[in-house]
């Protein structure tokens, strides 16, 4: 059984390999149509969440950083 550095190396390599081989895919900015749908929001009511976010953005004088639709700054 490997010890010390060898074990560290094997574990690191396994973790890197697992993270790449886990079915992850890069979703390009133009491929986010379905993700941008309000039904994809982590809230019971997507429309309500969108409304709340809208007035919150107006109050805070800032937009974006919520969901994937972008706030005009071209954020990813």
């Amino acid at each position: 059984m490997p010890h010390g550095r060898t074990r560290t190396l094997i574990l690191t390599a396994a973790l890197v390999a697992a993270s790449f081989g886990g079915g992850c895919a890069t979703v390009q900015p133009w491929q986010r149509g379905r993700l941008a749908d309000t039904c994809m929001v982590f809230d019971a009511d997507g429309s309500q969440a969108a409304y709340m976010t809208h007035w919150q953005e107006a109050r805070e004088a800032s937009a974006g950083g919520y969901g994937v639709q972008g706030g005009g700054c071209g954020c990813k």
Partner: protein
Amino acid sequence: MTHSHPATSLPYLRRIVMIAFAVEALIASRPSIAASTPRPTPNVEVYTADGVAVKLNDYKGKVVLIDFWASWCPPCKTSFPALDGLYGEYRDRGVEVLAVNLDERRQDADTFLGSHQHRLTVLYDPKGVSPQAFGVKGMPSSFLIDRAGNIRFTHMGYTNNVDSSYRREIAELLSEH
């Protein structure tokens, strides 16, 4: 009494995970494209509403503003009428505004366009080949191309300030021969 082996202790595992993340971040990072560096326009094909292929080099000799947009993207929807106004203002001076739609479902684009009268040229690329070639990093993204076919200015996102930038940049490109 039990003793935990140092190799399986929490700080050890934390170190392993941190190294793994660092290695992955190093591999996954890619250099960003410098927006201010002029580069030739990728001669990719986009499609008209009837499905006719159009090559972007066909517009060489004109000052062209290419905007990549989608109907699901709120700032894109804000920029669309502004771009149409810009086209109306500059078309007589040889400026072409191409709004390249990237909706995966054509129906979504048609619904939006049905409620927004426009004169600018709308082209379609549902497979996203052209934004890939241009190196689009966010939505919307626009590119100003000079008469020689080089990308001279790029914009990501849309605010009212972008509109005044467009005017200044178009004027600069029009003044070149």
